[in-house]
């Protein structure tokens, strides 16, 4: 009897593995024979949305991907941008949503592990981690379980690696109730000459597998990531991988030593689709072939079939391509780090991934067919039937608040706005000794030892805006991520993104996807921040209901002099408080409408990219001239919340008077989320110079008042509308999440 993994398959088994009828026919055509189980499994994972981008590829072409600083754009393990002095920043963001929804600790932990491998696979030393997390509302015990599990998983894995987790964002919204989002970003540092590529080049070169043993975990994980969740998804828990951060730490050190000693030709991590994707992608990039003997692969458990070995997503493994004469050296370095390194195959010129089990051929598939021949779809698009309706907002039906102080306290206590200290105090954000702006400010900033430079990093997306208007919401996500860098004094350089959406085969979802990318692309072009890569996570639906469209933007910026960094906190009573940018009469999509009026509707705030760019240029110039004592972006909760968040770090207050607000509702002025606005403070002696600079950059500048000792007072002309001790405001803000999490 034929071994089961050699049995020829039919269309039904292809469909069970997630392939469509047409794709099955394309497999037959590319392969030239009927695939056996192993071959079909390889196609199924490589042609899953997660690995092939078959539904998203065309839409992604809207992104600008080149620029003077881009050294490596989309398509490699991670993007690379030049930061001067022969150095480069390597960065990428990736999702681990579905595994985290099923098993939050391991799902999040292995998400961190995967993104870190993408960065050191390029030869870079990982220097920072960030994350973007989304859950349902915390009044549900299950959401609290997911939230605390995900944070513990990131903490447990990232801390052990010795890579500081320096920033991120957390949102809570009912749209994520059945499908939380866990997006992890890693930034690495490299000198240009150390850049490694994932290529299986050089006929006769050996293929080595290093790191963890191969087990049965995560088989078909990529397929699982490419389908909707349902009530029965918990039965897919075995598809979730289990992480071993200690092994990953050893892998980092060993791989960086291998790069440093220039003893390897190519390197790639084994992530989604495991050995299948690593081998086929490395061969495809080099236009070569690879022959692998699965019998050589060290196993965690006995009796694994070739099918299971090729599809296993066991974590903490890397595939190396090494010249035969250097194999002994590579093995010795790995062994010194306590890692096994096993010669499992050879680079060929056949263009095929040929899989042997000892002497028996179990699969032979063209590498290009696996890596790049998946069909590219042009999914149908349709404006969602509800889109026009949710944009309608009649402000006349929204009553003005009677007590603005109470509203402010409620907003500060809303988990989306509230302090995330409960989260980041579980992360080691200082290890490596280079974190100069700690979590809680607009962007994280790290110094680069041995240079005067600093790297600023942010991650952002207000998905409610994207839900209400995908194009504008996408543009705002990019603008805000860049603004967070600029308020820190850094010039925004480039973008990575993690596009979390529902099922793209539904025309209304694909409309969101396409439009959001169009909006992001427009902002990227205007702000001259090209996209260097990222990740697409589709099918984020539970029982047919999609999440808010969430195109998370990760961005890296450069400070030429890190001592000129600016943080969000007020520095000294008596400093002048100013609002840069224009405030409009808009409340659509605001956190205020949600928290106070239970409305998630209206058009999101307008965005003028010319004004946005002028503002960002001004901020970088003002920081460079050391004119800013503090700077903080106005985002969720608007001006009032921004003033409080600036007051909290050192416990100061603000004494502010709003004049000439006649055209604008007071709740819109205080809590509206008009874009391109920043609260800054400056020493009285620098005020004139700052105002001159604003004029030069054509940025509106409104003097609001002074930093005070310990109370936040807001007057409108001569009427006091908010008057609360900073301590009381801070208590509401700091206490909200610990209180909900009961600690």
């Amino acid at each position, binding site marked *: 009897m034929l071994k089961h993994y050699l049995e020829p398959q039919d269309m039904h088994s292809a469909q069970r593995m997630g392939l469509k009828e047409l794709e099955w026919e394309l497999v037959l055509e590319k392969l030239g024979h009927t695939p056996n189980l192993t071959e079909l499994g390889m196609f199924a994972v490589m042609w899953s949305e997660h690995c092939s981008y078959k539904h998203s590829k065309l839409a992604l072409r809207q992104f600008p991907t080149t620029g003077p600083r881009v050294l490596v754009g989309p398509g490699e393990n991670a993007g690379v941008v030049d930061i001067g002095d022969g150095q480069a920043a390597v960065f990428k963001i990736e999702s681990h949503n579905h595994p985290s929804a099923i098993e939050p600790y391991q799902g999040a932990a292995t998400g961190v592990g995967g993104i870190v491998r993408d960065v050191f696979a390029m030869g870079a030393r990982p220097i920072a981690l960030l994350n973007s997390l989304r859950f349902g509302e915390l009044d549900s015990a299950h959401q609290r379980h997911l939230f605390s599990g995900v944070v*513990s998983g990131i*903490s*447990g894995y990232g*801390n*052990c*690696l*010795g890579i500081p987790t320096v920033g991120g964002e957390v949102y809570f919204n009912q749209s994520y109730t059945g499908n939380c989002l866990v997006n992890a970003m890693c930034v690495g540092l490299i000198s240009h000459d150390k850049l490694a590529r994932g290529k299986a080049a050089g006929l006769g070169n050996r293929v080595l597998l290093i790191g963890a043993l191969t087990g049965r975990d995560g088989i078909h994980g990529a397929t699982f990531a490419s389908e909707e969740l349902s009530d029965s998804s918990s039965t897919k828990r075995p598809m979730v991988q289990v992480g*071993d*951060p*200690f*092994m990953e*730490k*050893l892998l980092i050190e060993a791989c960086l030593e291998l790069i440093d000693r220039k003893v390897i030709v190519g390197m790639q991590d084994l992530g989604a689709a495991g050995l299948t994707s690593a081998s086929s992608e490395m061969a495809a990039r080099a236009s070569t072939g690879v022959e692998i003997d699965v019998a050589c692969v060290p196993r965690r458990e006995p009796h694994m079939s070739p099918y299971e070995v090729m599809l296993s997503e066991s974590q903490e493994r890397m595939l190396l391509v090494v010249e035969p004469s250097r194999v002994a050296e590579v093995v010795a370095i790995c062994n010194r*780090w*306590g890692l096994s390194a096993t010669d499992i195959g050879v680079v060929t010129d056949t263009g095929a991934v040929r899989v042997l089990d000892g002497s028996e051929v179990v699969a032979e598939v063209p590498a290009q067919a696996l890596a790049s021949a998946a069909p590219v779809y042009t999914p149908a698009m349709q404006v969602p039937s509800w889109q026009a309706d949710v944009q309608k907002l009649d402000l006349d039906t929204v009553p003005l608040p009677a007590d603005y102080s109470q509203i402010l306290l409620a907003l500060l206590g809303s988990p989306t706005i509230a302090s995330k200290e409960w989260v*980041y*105090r*579980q*992360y*080691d*954000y*200082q*290890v*490596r*000794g*280079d*974190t*100069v702006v*700690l979590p809680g400010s607009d962007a994280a900033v790290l*110094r680069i*030892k041995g240079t005067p430079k600093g790297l600023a990093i942010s991650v952002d997306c207000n998905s409610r805006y994207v839900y209400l208007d995908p194009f504008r919401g996408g543009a705002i996500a990019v603008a805000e991520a860049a603004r967070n860098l600029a308020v820190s004094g850094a010039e925004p350089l480039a973008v990575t993104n993690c596009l979390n959406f529902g099922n793209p085969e539904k025309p209304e979802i694909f409309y969101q996807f396409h439009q959001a990318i169009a909006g992001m692309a427009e902002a990227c072009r205007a702000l001259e921040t090209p996209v260097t890569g990222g990740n697409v996570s589709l099918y984020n639906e539970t029982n047919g209901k999609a999440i808010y469209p969430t195109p998370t933007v990760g961005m890296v910026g450069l400070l030429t002099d*890190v*001592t000129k960094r600016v943080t969000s906190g007020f520095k000294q009573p008596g400093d002048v408080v100013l609002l840069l940018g224009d405030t409009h009469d808009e409340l659509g999509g605001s956190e205020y409408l949600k928290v106070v009026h239970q409305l998630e509707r209206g058009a999101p705030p307008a965005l003028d990219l010319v004004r946005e760019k002028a503002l960002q240029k001004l901020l970088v110039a003002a920081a460079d001239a050391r004119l800013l004592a503090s700077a903080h972006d106005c985002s969720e909760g608007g001006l009032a919340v921004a003033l409080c968040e600036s007051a909290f770090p050192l416990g100061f207050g603000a004494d502010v008077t709003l004049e000439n607000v006649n055209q604008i509702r007071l709740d819109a002025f205080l809590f509206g989320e008009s874009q391109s606005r920043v609260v800054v403070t400056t020493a009285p002696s620098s005020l004139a110079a700052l105002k001159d600079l604003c004029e030069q950059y054509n940025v509106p500048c409104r003097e609001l008042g002074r930093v005070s000792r310990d109370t936040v007072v807001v007057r409108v002309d001569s009427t006091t509308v908010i008057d609360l001790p900073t301590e009381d405001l801070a208590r509401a803000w700091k206490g909200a999440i610990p209180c909900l999490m009961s*600690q």
Partner: protein
Amino acid sequence: MRFGVVVFPGSNCDIDCYHAAKEILGQPTDYVWHETSDLSSYDCIVLPGGFSYGDYLRPGAIARFAPAMQAVAEAAGRGKLVLGICNGFQILLEAGLLPGAMRRNDHLQFRCETRHLRLENNTTPFTHLGERGQILRLPIAHADGNYYIDELGLAELKRNNQIVLRYCDAEGQPTASANPNGALENIAGIVNRRGNVFGLMPHPERALENITGGTDGQLVWTSILKWWEGNHA
């Protein structure tokens, strides 16, 4: 003065400690591989923070068997200085070079934040430049800093003035709310009876420069250097 920073598989504050000794103090400093069994050329041996051997089994429980730890014990016996920070402190406890044991934080979470500490003993080589009762601000970052010792051991620590640092509030009071992990009597750092082996949970190597959040950690590093210079003048 020559520093050796021991690198176990999973150490991750090794570069920070190296930076402290080499760049901030300006002293010759080497990374020392955990398989090294001769540490005789070092005047101060640093066991850095991190997750040696993944903290599997128990923090420090596997690292104590590394060949370098035998050499650390010998060096300590000869009166050389040994500084164990965070995971290094945990290893010193597991190796029996310091008394007591470390338990998981009482709230069961990892905790990273800057804390106030009161200097209880300014007569050690590691703290002699400070003043008794002085309040320091130092970062902590650990999941297992809940120090424990039995009653007899505690009495002995007190009798020999071995308690060096206690978690305290801004006014210097070692209150329950100032205790970040449940450590017995807010103990954050201790020395051995001889005074040449110091273990502490806070990270003095993370508080050496204003740009990275303060300079209170200089007390420890500069004390070490001055003490050695005083003995080798």
